[in-house]
Every structure is written in C-alpha cells, then in structure tokens.
C-alpha cells in the first residue's frame, strides 16, 4: 500500500525511508527520494515563510491520481508522498516523495514525475511571505512544459 499524507506536522526523511525499505521487498534495488524546502531567498528577495492551503478530500484525491498514474507508467514497489500545509517558516521542509523500484531508472523517473505533477495538478495554494509583501505562487510555464513532457515520454525503462 502506498502512503499519501497531507499534514501540518513536519516529516522525517529517515522515518519514511525506513518505512519504505520495510515494505519494498526482496527485489528492491533503488530508492529515489526528493525533499522540497522553503527557500529563504529568491534572488535578492528575502523569503520569510510560506502559507500552504488545501481542500480536504480533494487534495488527497489529486495526489492519489498522480500516484496511480506513476504506477501505470513504471514498475514500482512502494511510493510515499507527504505534503505539508499551514504556515511554514523559511528553510522548512514542504514535501517528500519516496519511490522504491527494482531498478534505478524507474525510481528516478517516477519520483521526478510525481514532483512535476504535484506542481501543476495537486490541489494546493501557496502564498510566499516576502520582505516585499505577500504573493500567491502560480505554476510557471516551465512547470507546465515539464508536465506536458511526460505525455510523450517513454514509460517503463526496465530492461
């Protein structure tokens, strides 16, 4: 069973990695993880924090859809996605993705795919608290390009 959590509390990479290796099984040879952090600066602009809002129920469903899509595309043993909400100070952890697979290409691709789709398809709203004011963040053109890139990409690269 994959794990999807939306929570205010921080997460611990070590705990989630351990939980992943506990269930990934005998064929697991590759674990790719990604942690997104609140940047403390964006160029010259100082960022003091992030406000993250979600829509209970719909947000979880949007992540489930992304995880199911990843499972359709690659051969994966286990997936964990944890996304925080609420008020996050600069430097805080925002999001964690852990993917276990037999081979590294599938683990890498699925981890990156999930992060890319979280940017454009997951139901969250982010407000950056900057020294110059508050601003609601939108997906960038680059985010959409990366999402669209997956549509033509090869699926399982297992050999």
């Amino acid at each position, binding site marked *: 069973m994959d794990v999807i959590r939306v929570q205010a509390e921080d997460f611990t990479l070590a705990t989630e990695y351990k939980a992943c290796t506990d269930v990934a099984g005998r064929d697991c040879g590759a674990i790719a993880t990604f942690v997104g952090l609140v940047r403390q600066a964006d160029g010259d602009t100082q960022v003091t924090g992030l406000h993250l809002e979600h*829509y209970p129920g719909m947000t979880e469903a949007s992540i489930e859809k992304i995880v199911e899509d990843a499972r359709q595309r690659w051969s994966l043993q286990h997936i964990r996605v944890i996304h925080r909400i609420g008020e996050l100070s600069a430097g805080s952890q925002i*999001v964690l993705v852990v993917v276990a697979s037999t081979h590294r290409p599938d683990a890498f691709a699925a981890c990156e795919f999930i992060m890319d789709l979280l940017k*454009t398809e997951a*139901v969250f709203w*982010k407000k950056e608290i900057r020294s110059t004011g508050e601003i*609601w*963040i*939108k*997906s960038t053109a680059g985010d959409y390009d990366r999402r669209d890139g997956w549509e033509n990409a090869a699926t399982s690269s297992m050999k």
Partner: protein
Amino acid sequence: MKVNVLFFASLKEDLGVSEIELDVSMLAGRSELLSALKNELGTECVAPVLEENVSIAINRRIEKGDFALKDGDEIAFLPPITGG
C-alpha cells in the same frame, strides 16, 4: 434548495469569506449559480471569482462544462493550484 459555496486562497482573501450558503433552484446550472453569487456578494465583489483561471469543483470534482446542481452540493471556487 441550498448549496454550499467555498472559496480558497486568493479568492477567500479577495472576497473576505471562505464559505457561504446559497439558495438556488433545483438543477441550477453555471449561469444561475453565478447570478445567485452576484446577488449575494455584489457584482463588483464577485469579479475575482469569474476570472478565466478560476476552476469550479462540484463535490470535489472539477467541472469544466455546465452542471446541474442538487440539494446539498458543495461548490468550490479554486484559483490556480500549485503544490510541491
């Protein structure tokens, strides 16, 4: 009949409200919903809700076309989403 309307993020800030109850007729569609919203919040106030990049979700599912509301439906106005 009654439906529940939710506003998130920038919309919640712009409108100064996160949730309202609206009275609409059975099977009300998109235009009747927006009319009811204008009556409730005022035409000027409702402008941010009508922007092109705002999505409507009925019972937590995005509806891009028209729809027919039922009693107790939960309608959400979603400004552009981004996670990760």
